[in-house]
């Protein structure tokens, strides 16, 4: 028995020893950071100001987005240019602006104003509009290499022809709403249409010759602004600064701040349990009014001022909102601005919670 006991104790000690060293603490899970604004760190001010920056970066005096990556040059490239791929033909000078279809034409179309000289107008005018567009949306007017790759010259003449046919189509006087143009129209269908449209076009030209050309340019500019076919993509703004805490865009102001109401809302939201099981719970909007004392504690009981009546589910929602308010107090708010938050009305809208 002694031998057995000794063997057993030795075995157990060895196993435990191995276990202690090899089965020590499990590896930590690599969990991605949850996208949330750490409201506790951000100073509370009277206005909410969001500065462009990174949601997961540390707070810096000046918020800044993450630095953009410089496009790497293509190795062994033969031709000089901005394109991503090395192409034999020279780069196309500029992206041809093409009139793009929109769902509804501007109101001006109701007045019969066929353009007398479509062709030059269509080719000349949008070029400057394209430039203004770039200047308006982008701060650094860098030439975009991407645009040079995409233009496909095929649809352009088609669309131009279409535009011509369309304008010719316009009746002389009656304000007929324009039909939506069909961009790739087959050749067979086009011929009779043009034939049919010849006479009204002549009449229209005669009538609208006196119209000032300026108006027309304006219309084209408006159309160019309205018709944005290309998706905005990821944006082309470049940044070289180190990333710091901030939002996706700048809403004004100098710093990243939150208002008292934002702070209060964030604090209440932590305690709010939405009645998820309820049918149609998204529509259970409740508004409550309550009073806070200077220390931030809730005075009395929150009053339901809208919602929370009718079905038992609505009452439960109101009750949950009331509980959230009571449970999360006292609230941490700047005391010197007590008058701003002494009486609070909070709207509980569960839509965002689903």
């Amino acid at each position, binding site marked *: *028995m002694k*031998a*057995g*006991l000794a*063997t*057993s*104790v030795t*075995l*157990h000690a060895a196993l435990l020893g191995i*276990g*202690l060293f090899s*089965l*020590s*603490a*499990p590896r*930590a899970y690599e969990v991605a950071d949850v996208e949330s604004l750490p409201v*506790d760190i951000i100073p509370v001010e009277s206005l909410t100001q969001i500065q462009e920056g990174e949601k997961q970066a540390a707070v810096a005096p000046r918020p800044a987005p993450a630095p953009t990556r410089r496009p790497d040059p293509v190795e062994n490239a033969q031709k000089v240019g901005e394109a991503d791929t090395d192409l034999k033909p020279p780069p196309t000078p500029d992206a041809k602006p093409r009139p793009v279809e929109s769902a509804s034409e501007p109101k001006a179309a109701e007045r019969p104003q066929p353009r007398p000289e479509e062709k030059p107008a269509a080719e000349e005018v949008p070029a400057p509009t394209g430039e203004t567009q770039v200047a308006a949306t982008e701060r650094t007017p860098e030439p975009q290499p991407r645009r040079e790759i995409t233009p496909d010259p095929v649809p352009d003449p088609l669309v131009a022809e279409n535009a011509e046919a369309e304008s010719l189509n316009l009746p002389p006087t009656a304000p007929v709403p324009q039909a939506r143009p069909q961009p790739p129209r087959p050749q067979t269908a086009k011929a009779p249409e043009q034939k049919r449209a010849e006479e009204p076009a002549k009449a229209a030209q005669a009538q609208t010759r006196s119209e000032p050309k300026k108006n027309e340019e304006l219309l084209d500019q408006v159309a160019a602004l309205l018709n944005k076919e290309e998706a905005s993509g990821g944006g082309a703004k470049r940044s070289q600064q180190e990333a710091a805490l901030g939002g996706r865009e700048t809403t004004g102001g100098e710093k990243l701040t939150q208002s008292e109401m934002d702070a209060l809302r964030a604090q209440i939201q932590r305690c709010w349990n939405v009645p998820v099981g309820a049918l149609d719970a998204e529509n259970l909007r409740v508004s409550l009014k309550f009073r806070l004392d200077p220390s931030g504690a809730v005075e009395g009981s929150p009053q339901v001022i809208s919602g929370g009546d009718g079905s038992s589910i609505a009452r439960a929602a109101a009750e949950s909102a009331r509980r959230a308010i009571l449970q999360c107090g006292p609230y941490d708010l700047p005391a010197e601005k007590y008058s701003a938050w002494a009486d609070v009305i909070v709207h509980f809208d569960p839509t965002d919670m689903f």
Partner: protein
Amino acid sequence: MESVALAAPGGDLSIWALFWQAGWVVKLVMIGLLGASIWTWAIIVDKTLAYARMRRALNRFEQVFWSGQSLEELYRSLSERKTTGMGAIFVAAMREWKKSFEKGARSPLGLQTRIDKAMDLALAREMERLEGKLGFLASVGSSAPFIGLFGTVVGIMTSFQAIAGSKSTNLAVVAPGIAEALLATAMGLLAAIPAVIAYNKLTADAGRLGARMEGFADEFSAILSRQIDEKVAPRTRAEEYA
């Protein structure tokens, strides 16, 4: 800053840390299960060695017994030292035989019965020695999972109380408690599984050895019965002739 503290990982999760974090009931359960496991393995090692020894002894004895050696000589050599297994049965039977004949037994039937009884007794003693402590393995095999489960239930109760106390359902609050509670069940299973397997194996081995010894006892009983008949028959015949 409270949220930051809650989001921090739930501390050390090594086995040693889990043991020390556990409550005293869970600790007691774990220590008991560790003790049971140690004792179980001690029995397993001991019994395995003992059965191997016994098997070798039986083989050697059978070889000697059927080698044609005189039983008197065998008895003389065996009775001087401590015997196990078949040797013990043989010595018990021979002792009874010699005692009866030295005093001049009269009834052959009574002698046969006495010899059988002596052999049965020796066999029972041997079987008891073989199967002793196997009951502990059976107990551990059947009850250790439950003991471990008990520790787990108590541990989980504690960790739920911790949830109630911290007013947070964060997994980081619950996880260490549940991990340490589950350690108790793990230890229970760790003790129970070898115990059950070893119990089945050792019981079968013991049964096989017991059957071998029983067979020898029957055989030896038959030999002695023949001897008794042979010794008694001439005497009665002589009495008839006289």
